[in-house]
């Protein structure tokens, strides 16, 4: 083979391998989603949403308690996490803009985003569950909100930075104090971006299991009491998948399907909003 042919062959091989890599990535996505879809749809029925779990080993029953519990934990986590995150991001992008402290907090938040969520579970167990003496929905919601805060904080910071500084100057020139400028001008300009960040952060925590294992724990009965242990879809999936009954496995698949659809929907929605608002 001549040198040219060798170089060309090498190129073709490398390009084919890269294409293969992309196909492998897509293969895993289709494999996992397809599998969840096939198993999940088979197990979906009305009883899943309107009934509470049957006693262990008995056929039937549903996961109403887990759906409601998951919803409550996620909503309360959002109610705690979003205001703290948005306000924190505001400080970094506005009052502390360009200062060293803003940079440090920004970097630390990026690290916090990836800190193992199970560690946050143990932390909340030590400071809340242990002190109160029992598992509680609040502990779960707070654990999730700690995961949420850095995510919301960083996107808020980025989105506020995108709002042109001249817009603020125009408002200052009219004599508006800074807080009014932030709330009435800057937030309005960055609203879509902040909302997207919130959607993505909800998607991020809604599928978390590890931080709930020792905080909200699980509850086989219907409960809306955030002061006691409360059931969640993810922990129920963990328990049911480990369990010995086929019926449990089927319900775990159905729950997996619902949670996957919810999260992928939020993620795609967030992506499309970004695309529509900032690139298109």
């Amino acid at each position: 083979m001549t040198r040219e042919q060798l170089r060309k062959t090498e190129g073709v091989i490398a390009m084919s391998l890269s294409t293969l890599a992309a196909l492998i990535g897509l293969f895993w996505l289709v494999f996992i989603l397809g599998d969840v879809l096939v198993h999940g749809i088979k197990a979906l029925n009305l009883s899943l949403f309107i009934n509470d779990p049957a006693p262990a080993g008995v056929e039937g029953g549903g996961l109403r308690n887990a759906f409601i519990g998951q919803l409550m934990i996620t909503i309360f986590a959002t109610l705690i996490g979003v205001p703290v995150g948005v306000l924190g991001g505001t400080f970094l992008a506005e009052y502390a803009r360009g200062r060293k402290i803003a940079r440090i907090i920004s970097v630390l938040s990026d690290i916090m985003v990836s800190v193992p969520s199970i560690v946050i579970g143990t932390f909340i167990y030590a400071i809340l569950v242990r002190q109160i003496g029992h598992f509680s929905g609040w502990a779960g919601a707070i654990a999730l909100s700690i995961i949420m805060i850095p995510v919301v904080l960083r996107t808020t910071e980025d989105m506020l930075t995108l709002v042109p500084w001249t817009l603020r100057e125009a408002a200052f020139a009219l004599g508006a104090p800074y807080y009014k400028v932030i709330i009435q001008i800057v937030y309005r300009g960055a609203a879509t971006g902040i909302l997207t960040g919130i959607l993505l952060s909800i998607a991020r925590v809604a599928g978390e299991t590890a931080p709930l294992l020792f905080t909200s724990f699980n509850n086989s009965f219907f409960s809306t009491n955030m002061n006691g242990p409360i059931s969640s879809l993810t922990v129920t999936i963990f328990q049911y998948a480990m369990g010995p009954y086929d019926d449990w496995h089927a319900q775990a698949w159905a729950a997996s399907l619902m949670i996957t659809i919810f999260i992928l929907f939020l993620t795609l929605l967030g992506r499309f909003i970004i695309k529509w608002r900032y690139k298109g």
Partner: protein
Amino acid sequence: MAILSKKNPIDLLFSVITAIASFSVIIFIIGILFVLIKESSLSIGKFGIIKFLTSTDWDPVKESFGALTNIYGTLLTTFLSLIIAIPVAIGIAIFITEISPNFLKGPIGIAIELLAAIPSIIYGMWGLFTLSPVMSNHVEPFLKKITAGIPFVEILFRGTPMGIDILTASVILSIMIIPFTASISRDSFNLTPSVVKESAYAIGATKWEVIKNIVIPYSKLGVFGGIVLSLGRALGETMAIAFVLGNNHRITTSLLDAAATITVTLANEFAEADKDIYLSSLFYLALVLFVMSFITLAIAKFFLLKAERKYSR
């Protein structure tokens, strides 16, 4: 702008509130570190630091605890998953930036990022009920067959293929971290100035030579940062491998054996730890994990920031 505004009382109040909100991140990090040290003090006092980190004991009955089996499992699964994931992730990045037609770039990028959005418990379910049987019936016997007789490599695949083992867990982890490495590599590749690439094409370089000699060297800081970030994510992954790792506190040489990672041990044993020293040792494990992943993620962030500064020049 002054960090705390003093002109207007409401403005002062608002700036203080936002400042408190943003300092919460620092408070959490220091709080986690402080609480974990405090909770594990009983175990630190009994087993020390060096002894805990190097002991393979994990015996709740004899109340003797060491972290080595957990650390070993964590590092081994992470390392294997990186080996599997890195070539695929970089291949994906090359495909998206250099090969794919324009209309496919966006959709494929989103598809790969969706892999990161799937909750880890779903990976766990899929791994236990779908991947694990495939591994034990097809992949693992095949690997055993082709490695049989090769010295040293053979040891890696000794034992019965059960599907509940280090190899299966590493494969699942590798799928989970592909999107992190791939999307950061893609973004770094995209930042290579086209003038430099075009100059190489002009002197007759093939596409692969441009990637190999221009794009990858130019973006290596970013790619490396992406790999270290994936490493940090893999260290702390819990639910995806909790089902398929087995929670076996022994150091094993075969990839077909069950093992334990720090995260899986915590997930399985934390809620049922009945003795103070047991619970304290679990907190100690969580502390080790927190420090390990924090340092890894800080290194990743360092490289990514360095890359950012280089490209923005």
